[in-house]
C-alpha cells in the first residue's frame, strides 16, 4: 500500500503509523466531573465506529516528513481517496511551488 504524502509524495506504508479514526476532540470545560463530558471523552478515546467503507483516519509519516495526515480510506478495499495535512493549510504555496 502506498500513501501519497502531500509533502513527500508516494511513499511505502512502512514509513507511516496509523493513529486510528479521525474524531474531533470534545470541547472541555471546567467541570471535568460532568457525566456528559466524561462520556464524550470516553467515546472519543475508546469507541470507534469501524465502518465498512470510507473512513477518515490520522496517520503519522514517522519515517518521512513527520507530518500528521488525514487519510480517507475505504476499509474494504484499502483504496485511499484523499490525503491532506492534518494541520492548517498555510503551506499551500510551499506545496505547489
Amino acid at each position, binding site marked *: 500500500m502506498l500513501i501519497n504524502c502531500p*509533502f*513527500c509524495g508516494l511513499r511505502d506504508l512502512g*514509513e507511516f503509523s496509523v493513529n486510528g479514526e479521525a474524531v474531533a476532540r470534545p470541547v472541555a470545560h471546567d467541570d471535568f466531573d460532568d457525566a456528559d463530558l466524561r462520556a464524550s471523552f470516553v467515546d472519543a478515546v475508546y469507541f470507534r465506529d469501524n465502518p465498512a467503507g470510507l473512513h477518515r483516519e490520522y496517520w503519522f509519516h514517522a*519515517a518521512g516528513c513527520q*507530518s500528521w495526515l488525514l487519510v480517507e480510506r475505504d476499509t474494504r478495499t484499502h483504496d485511499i481517496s484523499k490525503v491532506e495535512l492534518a494541520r492548517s493549510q*498555510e503551506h499551500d504555496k*510551499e506545496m505547489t511551488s
Partner: protein
Amino acid sequence: MSDLSGVSERDAAFGLTLETTPHYYGCGRRGRAGAEPGVVLQLVVGDERFNIEARRGKTDELFISLRETFGRAPIKPMRTVEAGGFEFISIGPSRWHAISRGPDRDERHALLREAIHDLATMVEIAHGFIVFRLTGPMVTEVLIKHVRVDLDPEVFSPGACVTTELHGMTVQLRRTCDGDAYECAVARSYGGSLFHALTCAADPYGLLVLPAGDV
C-alpha cells in the same frame, strides 16, 4: 578505542566529547577485490547543521527574508537549495536543515540569524547526526537495496533529498547538488547500525572506507 582527539575547543566548552571517529568506523578496503572499488564511503566531520522551523504563519515572510539576504529561498519540497554558503535541505513542511561547511562560517551564520530573526527557530544540531558520504559507480545499487524511493538518476536528480526509512532507521538521504555523491544523515545513536547496513550492502561491489574528514 574511539578517537576523541579531534574535540574542538567549542565542543569542549560545552562539555561535549563526541568521538571524532566512532569505534565501529573501520577504514580500508572491504569486500570484493578489484582494481577500483565500486563504492567509496566516508564519514563527514566538521560540518554544522542548523534546524530551522518557521513559526506558524511566517513561512512566506521567511522566504522573502532569505531571498533578500541570500538571493534564493528553499521554497521547493524535497530539494536542496544552495544559498549564501549554506545547503538548505527540505525536511518537512516549513522545516529545513541548513548545512554549513568550509571557511568563513561565523559571518554566514550571523547573516542567517539576522535573516531569520523572529520568523523561525534556529538550533545547531550537528552533534545529533552522523553523516556518511557515498560515491562510486555502484552507489545507487547499494542504496536501492535499502530504501523504497525511486533512485533513478532522472528522478532522484542532483539536489534531491528525502527523509525515508532505511533498514529500520529514519534517514535523511540526499544527492549532492553536483550529483557526484549521496549523503546519508542519521541520528547519531544509529550511526553504527547505518554503517553496518551500508557496508554490508556495498561489500559485493568492493568498498573503500576512507578516514573521516571534511568534504
